[in-house]
């Protein structure tokens, strides 16, 4: 029973990391109508950045703000230079453009850092285990990651629900065409949303670095899962992304542990079931 609880916690923690990544993706879709296949690469960039910063300064905790700030800057730059121009292009162009970004990010990482697998140390202050149940213990760092993700999620919800800017973003996500009519500065919103989405993905990568190590393909799995989360949760819905991410995270984690051959298939199967029942996602307003 204790072992099972550990896996549940793992699943929730994975799901929350997935939420950080997917929330950015769903908002970017909802508000800007842009497909960003390179979103998984951002996660990888955040992880490698953490490796570099933690290695250079010896302090893991410095990597988190580095990832967030780096993400905000990178996202804003990408949005202004590229995505702003591509918003109105068709799917084919967007898919290929962001696919090219993946390749270029890979190449940049290879040139600036390397193509190797690296371990990142769990910060010593958290390098212990908390007893949970039946003789099992859970990594304290993982619990902290859980807490941080929940805190970020709560802040996101509070921001979107309580602030005026958040309301503008919500309006833009629900009704992109109306934004200009409502007198909201659409360009500002787009840059903000893209920057925030990028920062969230990189933060997820930073948090995950000590857990799964840093390697070139680490973003691939998350990319597919985050698309599944967005489809299940509904485009533009943060609440949808939250519950869908938890669900997908649990199924994927438990699947990999208990039925490894079917884990990937199971998650896609879940999406199939949802599409059968609700073709626009569980939480979408369509």
């Amino acid at each position, binding site marked *: 029973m204790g072992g099972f609880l550990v896996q549940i916690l793992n699943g929730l923690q994975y799901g929350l990391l997935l939420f950080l990544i997917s929330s950015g993706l769903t908002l970017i879709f909802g508000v800007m*109508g842009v*497909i960003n296949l390179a979103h998984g690469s951002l996660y990888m960039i955040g992880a490698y950045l953490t490796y570099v910063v933690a290695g250079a300064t010896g302090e893991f905790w410095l990597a988190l703000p580095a990832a967030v700030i780096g993400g905000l800057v990178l996202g804003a730059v990408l949005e202004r230079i590229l995505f702003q121009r591509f918003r109105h292009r*068709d799917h084919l*162009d967007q*898919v290929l*453009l962001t696919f090219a970004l993946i390749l270029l990010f890979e190449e940049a990482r290879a040139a600036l850092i390397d193509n190797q697998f690296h371990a990142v140390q769990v910060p010593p202050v958290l390098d212990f285990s908390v007893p949970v149940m039946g003789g099992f213990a859970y990594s304290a760092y993982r619990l902290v990651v859980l807490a941080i993700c929940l805190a970020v999620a709560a802040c996101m919800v509070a921001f979107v629900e309580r602030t005026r800017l958040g309301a503008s973003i919500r309006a833009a996500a629900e009704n992109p065409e109306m934004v200009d009519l409502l007198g909201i500065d659409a360009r500002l919103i787009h840059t903000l949303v893209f920057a925030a989405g990028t920062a969230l993905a990189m933060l997820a990568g930073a948090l995950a670095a000590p857990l799964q190590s840093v390697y070139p393909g680490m973003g691939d799995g998350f990319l*597919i899962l985050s698309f599944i989360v967005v489809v299940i949760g509904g485009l533009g819905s943060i609440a949808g992304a939250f519950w869908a991410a938890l669900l997908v995270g649990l199924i994927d984690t438990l699947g990999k542990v208990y039925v490894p*051959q079917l*884990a990937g298939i199971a998650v896609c199967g879940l999406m199939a079931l949802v599409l059968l029942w609700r073709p626009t996602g569980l939480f979408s307003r369509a």
Partner: protein
Amino acid sequence: MTRLTPRGNLLLGLAALVLASMPFWAEPYHMQLASIALVAAMFALSLQILVGAAGLVSLAQAGFFGIGAYTVYLFGGRVSIFISLPGSLFAAAVAAAAIGPLVLRTRGFYFLMASLAFGQMLFFLFHDTSLGGGADGVFITRPTMIWPVSRSARPAVFLLLNLASLSLMYLGLWWLMGTMFGHALAGIKINEDRMRALGHDVQRLKLAAFILSGALAGLAGHMAAVTDAFVSPELLDWHHSAEALLMILLGGIGALHGPILGAFALTLVREIGQSVTERQRLVEGVVILAAVLLLRRGLAGWRR
């Protein structure tokens, strides 16, 4: 999506003849390269039924390609190509018929993402389970042809086989796009809602296109397996699907023969790129960026 005039087809036919003559003057390496381009052309052409004809941008195509390829592996090499080829077509068609009704419940962005996820489901099927013989891929025994093919004759024989397959596929699709079915797909691409209002069974039309497209991707996969004698789960990965989209973009989304041009162009670019630098991803990334930013109508469009 436009079709070539009979005169345009004649030009393509001339190019095909040039390729067919390669066994007489070309080196084996170049014939192998031509085979790579031909298989890629079949793959991209199979997707054009969805993208160019009906306006459905799908990232699942590699899944059907891979099913066609792995069917050859699953046959075990004891069969004749006259069994393995229809077998691959059928297996891919069945998969498309199973996935189609689900993925076609979505439209627009959802369709793209749903197709991505279903394609990956097929990838996981061959990557994670024992069905595919392992995550690293397996060597396969080729199906038997009418008479045995010596090792030295292989490049020429496969070149001609692939050329024949592509030609048949292209001519078949050329005819299909002139039928009421082909025109209905064009109508769906322009104004799907109006098509419904005019009495078209749009869902069934899309499903028919999806199954046909999947089956033809399976055919391309079959030819890849026969040519390379090796299959791996990477064949089903979504990156491979994106490559098909790239070839369509390069050649021209608005023309039926665009994918053929795009496939040859991409194969050539890759070949040149490999001789220039080791940084293949950089080359490909830049090529894609250039194509998306500059080529508004693709190579086919330049002829106009």
